[in-house]
């Protein structure tokens, strides 16, 4: 038999519940007593439902709820306290007296003591992000799926079938330069999937070891400087995998203010793995150039975040997180979680990539792409770059890494200083089209437009300043 879980509240609360019960005659998904308790705690959703269900009786209900709202201590606290006491009593019956345990285990302690915690954090991020996601995922797996499977099999077959069965314009839509299969699907499955798949695996591993909350608490102070709190480290780190996906994940942040700041930071100064890999490859020949890129992007990240924190109204979000004990993860669970997340990713993000290639195809058909490239030539020349680089910036908008990849082809004609300016500007420059689409979906059109409008001039201004600054440096 199920034990009785009824919680006894104070006489005042029981009296208020007693007055509400005869007025609740509608159909509710749960018992009237629960509805009465939610009403007394000021639950808006249940108030709306009651208004619809009870009609004229709702006015009387409102009077009682208003009286309850004037009680001191607040009713929600008294209810929470009564429930807590009941939970304690049940715990005592089934578990005996709870004991307060000190921080257990040396490893646990080492991951929290700052002098060892930060080096451990750096090692985990290096091996997890750089070696596993960046090396194995973004290079080995992408080379295999994109290079061997798509370039060698899927795309040529799609091209041949499309040419045989479809009109030239439709064939272009399916298997042309910006085709749904040859660009959209290839990009989603061949480039992004291996990267986010390995990233999800690493992320689930961290989650199951109980390390993730430690990462958040170690990053809390740094995140506070840009108006966020430790929780934001999750979407920001995810952004190093795929900014589009990370923008979706900003949903987990508590306030709209935090979500806007995180979306802005992701769009401005968090390069995705595809872009990061190419930028590192481009600048690898000159450690000084790579250092300048890190310094400039890092400074912009901190400054822009700090400014966004100052400009946006609203209170700063407080940080709190439960800290589970560290434990050895179970591989089966990690694989299950990774698979579920990949499924979610495919359902949520793939349509965006397919839609992007559809839009690109349309622009290409109408000759808009050439027009935009022409318009971009002037600002690009101001950055000290050849006019050909305009195309790279446009492609960078449609696909961040595509821009960097275009730069890779041009690198023989560029000096190290020009490469530094171009990579820095491209990193800051507008996120890819898929990310903009998700920004509109998650934050709404006005916010997305404002973010993009802030980023374009900022990216070019930084690039312009860097071009002049590097002119006096022996690079």
């Amino acid at each position, binding site marked *: 038999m199920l034990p009785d879980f009824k919680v006894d509240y104070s006489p005042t609360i029981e009296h208020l519940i007693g007055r509400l019960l005869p007025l609740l005659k509608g159909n509710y998904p749960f018992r009237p007593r629960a509805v009465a308790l939610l009403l007394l705690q000021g639950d808006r959703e249940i108030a709306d439902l009651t208004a619809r269900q009870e009609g004229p009786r709702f006015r009387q209900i409102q009077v009682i709820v208003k009286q309850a709202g004037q009680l*001191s201590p607040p009713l929600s606290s008294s209810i*929470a306290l009564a429930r807590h*006491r009941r939970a*304690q009593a049940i*715990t005592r019956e089934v578990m005996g007296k*709870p004991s*307060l345990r000190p*921080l257990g285990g040396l490893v646990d302690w080492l991951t929290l003591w700052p002098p060892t915690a930060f080096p451990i954090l750096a090692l985990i991020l290096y091996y997890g992000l750089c070696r596993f996601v960046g090396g194995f995922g973004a290079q080995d797996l992408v080379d295999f799926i994109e290079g061997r499977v798509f370039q060698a099999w899927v795309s040529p077959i799609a091209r041949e079938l499309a040419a045989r069965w479809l009109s030239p314009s439709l064939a272009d839509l399916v298997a042309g330069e910006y085709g749904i299969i040859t660009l959209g699907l290839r990009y989603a499955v061949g480039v992004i999937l291996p990267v986010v798949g390995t990233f999800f695996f690493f992320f689930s591993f961290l989650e199951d070891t109980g390390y993730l909350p430690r990462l958040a608490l170690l990053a809390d*102070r740094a995140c506070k400087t840009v108006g966020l709190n430790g929780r934001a480290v999750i979407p920001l780190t995810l952004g190093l995998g795929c900014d589009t996906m990370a923008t979706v994940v900003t949903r987990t942040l508590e306030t709209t203010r935090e979500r806007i700041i995180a979306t802005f930071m992701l769009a401005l100064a968090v390069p995705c793995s595809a872009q990061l890999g190419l930028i590192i490859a481009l600048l690898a020949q000159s450690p000084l150039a790579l250092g300048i890129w890190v310094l400039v992007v890092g400074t912009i990240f901190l400054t822009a975040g700090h400014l966004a924190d100052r400009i946006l109204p609203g209170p700063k979000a*407080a940080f709190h997180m439960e800290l589970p004990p560290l434990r050895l993860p179970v591989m089966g669970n990690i694989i299950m979680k990774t698979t579920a997340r990949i499924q979610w990713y495919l359902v949520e993000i793939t349509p965006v990539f397919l839609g992007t290639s559809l839009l690109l195809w349309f622009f290409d058909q109408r000759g808009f792409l050439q027009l935009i490239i022409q318009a971009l030539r002037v600002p690009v020349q101001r950055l000290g770059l050849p006019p050909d680089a305009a195309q790279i910036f446009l492609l960078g908008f449609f696909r961040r890494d595509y821009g960097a990849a275009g730069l890779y082809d041009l690198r023989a004609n560029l000096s190290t200083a020009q490469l530094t300016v171009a990579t820095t500007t491209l990193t800051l420059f507008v996120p890819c089209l898929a990310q903009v689409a998700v920004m509109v979906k998650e934050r709404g059109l006005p916010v997305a437009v404002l973010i993009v409008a802030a980023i374009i001039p900022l990216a070019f201004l930084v690039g312009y300043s860097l071009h002049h600054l590097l002119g006096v440096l022996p690079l």
Partner: protein
Amino acid sequence: MFAKEKKPPHAPLTCWPVHFRGTVADLAAETDAQLAKLLALGIVPGVGIHILRRSPCWIIQIGFTRLALDEAMARTILLQPAHPPEAGSSDPDG
């Protein structure tokens, strides 16, 4: 907010040293949302709290739960020393 009868002196959690064991005397939350958050975390007047660390964040133990809190949130929790019979217990009624 909760305190009515006379109680031993209490101070914000941030004023007590690491390893201190106390009970929650009151909550000084500024907004309803903040109060709701504390209550949802199980931080209610009368529960026992053990302070485990103060850097890089405040880390406290409540019953079987370990929580990390930032300075602003920790400051809203007012603690008083736990009475000897209550030490080690998170039950408000002893």
